């Protein structure tokens, strides 16, 4: 059953394979977004698709987020399975009315009669010096909205497999992909495909401290864990993956084992995913805690343009190592 051979691919390639598979598997699936066709995608994720699948299924749209996201929602209502690509999360703010007032609400407004099976993909987080208007992380904002399933592809495996599961959902799913990971190479099982969209995932097992993270934090935490392992500190890493609804169980089980938690995210600190996770820990795992919960988040400024300031504005591998050491050394 299990295919032991692996495949070394970039995050971009993983996304591409996911979309390609979806387009092959169902005629109802089509991709729409700015520059997804002729240009091959702003981040070259859909390069070559227009030639392969044609204009009906690879649809370039005008620069009007509200318009084309609304069109995608309409297509979903009409029985199609649209993949709507919003170039970056920053521009999705223009489509919020469609996403909140239509996609997330219609099932409720119709008394359960109308599902909206739309999948919206967006790039999030810092790119490489793309400045404040192209670099923000809006996951906490989207995770706030009932009626949307919010998932975050922090690994190549999820970049490859989240879309096909999302397309099976009768309700709207927003997939966060990460600009900073696009060129990163990693090995995935060559047979890997659909992944679940329900559970957080323990990416590394450990006993001394739980790092709870998502998105680009996952690989940074894994790298930090390697450094910490040389100091005989054994951290557990939880990739949240699903930011709404959050999987309490995995978090609580981990803290029951390690008794300490550090949350890592690139989004701004206040009213963030980490705020929510810490609340849930207090609600569900208070008596398992042996130290105050700590968090590393984005500095609360518009993401700066200069490289060194951009790096300093979000948690890095070394910050994670330092925080963990500080929390553990009291032992």
């Amino acid at each position: 059953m299990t295919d032991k051979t692996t495949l070394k691919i970039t995050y971009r390639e993983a996304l591409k394979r996911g979309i390609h598979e979806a387009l092959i598997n169902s005629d109802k699936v089509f991709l729409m977004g700015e520059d997804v066709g002729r240009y091959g995608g702003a981040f070259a994720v859909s390069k070559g698709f227009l030639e392969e699948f044609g204009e009906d299924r690879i649809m370039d749209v005008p620069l009007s987020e509200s318009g084309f996201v609304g069109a995608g929602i309409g297509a979903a209502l009409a029985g199609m399975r649209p993949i709507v690509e919003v170039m970056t999360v920053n521009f999705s703010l223009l489509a919020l009315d469609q996403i909140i007032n239509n996609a997330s609400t219609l099932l409720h407004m119709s008394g359960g009669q109308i599902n909206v099976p739309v999948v919206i993909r967006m790039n999030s987080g810092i790119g490489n010096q793309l400045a404040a208007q192209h670099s923000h992380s809006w996951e906490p904002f989207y995770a706030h909205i009932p009626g949307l399933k919010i998932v975050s592809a922090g690994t190549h495996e999820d970049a490859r497999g989240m879309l096909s599961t999302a397309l099976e959902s009768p309700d709207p799913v927003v997939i966060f992909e990460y600009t900073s990971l696009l060129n990163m190479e990693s090995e995935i099982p060559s047979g890997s495909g659909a992944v679940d969209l329900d559970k957080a995932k323990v990416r590394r097992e450990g006993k001394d401290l739980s790092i709870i993270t998502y998105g680009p934090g996952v690989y940074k935490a894994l790298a930090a864990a390697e450094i910490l392992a040389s100091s005989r500190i054994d951290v557990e890493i939880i990739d949240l993956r699903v930011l709404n609804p959050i999987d309490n169980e995995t978090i609580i089980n981990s803290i029951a084992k390690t008794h300490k938690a550090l949350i890592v995210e690139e989004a701004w600190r206040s009213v963030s995913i980490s705020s929510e996770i810490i609340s849930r820990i207090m609600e569900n795992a208070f008596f398992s805690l042996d130290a105050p919960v700590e968090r590393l988040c984005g500095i609360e400024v518009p993401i700066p343009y200069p490289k060194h300031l951009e790096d300093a504005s979000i948690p890095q591998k070394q910050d994670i190592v330092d925080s963990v050491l500080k929390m553990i050394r009291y032992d």
Partner: protein
Amino acid sequence: MIEFTMPSLGADMEDGTLVEWRVKYGDFVKRGDIIADVDTQKGLIEIEVFDEGTIAELIVKEGENVPVGTVMANIIPVGEKVSVKKKSRIKKEPIKQIVNKGSIKIDDQLKISPLAKKIAKEKGIDLSTIKGSGPEGSIVKKDIDLAVVMKVESHVEVTGGKKEIAVKGLRAAIATAMSKSNREIPHFYLETRIDMSKALDWLRESNRQRELKDRLLSVVLLIKATAKAIKEVPSVNAFWENGLQLKDSINIGFAVSLRQGGVVIPAIPEADNKSLNQLMDLLNDLIPRARALQLRSSELSESTITVSNIGEGSTDKVFGVIYPPQVAILGFGNIVEEAWAEDGELSTRPVVHVTLAADHRAIDGYLGSRFLMALKKNLQKPEAL
């Protein structure tokens, strides 16, 4: 309503087993009454009550082992009429002391992780004996685990007689207290030699006139001289708990060693106000009970300073380890003949070496040395003791 709790008979006591209630529901008790017999690491102790009122409820059952601070009984104070439960709710002072479901008292200043607190409660660990190693000195799981291990070690292998078990527990209690002392208290030592010829001459003469059973031991002179010296330099008679707390009563803890190992320190209350005869009577009562591990709760918990005469008959000098939270321990060596130079003349005198071990957080060398000088002076005027 007054909550009667398992008393702490020193920093080293963690729990006790209720052997027998000496009172029953509805009994009237007053200060000093023996309310229960409790088996502790220091033997079977008669527990006294410090309030006046009527027993409303006996909560802990005979045979039950409970941590220090556990509410054992409820007492309705004199004059209180209202329904017991309601009144107690009103009377309870908020926040001052968090009572963790009636079992462990936790000071509101205490920092402890929720997990550590939970485990401590489950295992019945007395938090007041634990030093935290976590952030901001907080108590974390590791500290409790350590305390649990120590506690378990003190209770395992309990084969053999009751006394044997008690001695085993006593060993663990001493280990805890002395480790804490050595870890936390910056000891310093001062020593002096005291010419005991006048004291011993006086004692010999005094004993000659006494009935055999009324004879005094030299240690009584040492205790009384110490008590009087404390009156002159009260700083040594204190506790170090969140800073220096001078004690008004001079309750001298007298170290009684057990032949099979272990040491018990009953208090001689207000030793400065007692005559030599009274002190001797007290020793006649205390020493055999201490050796049999049958002391009362107050006798184990009231000492404000410790005197060790363990050198007697054997060792020249005794360098003590302070019993927390006290700030001083005085060690008397054997009284032996030594060469003594005075006024250009050399002679032999009976001499005792006395060593003061003191907590440098609380006392400085100058005061310690003044205390020893006062002691020396007192022993030169035995008739005034």
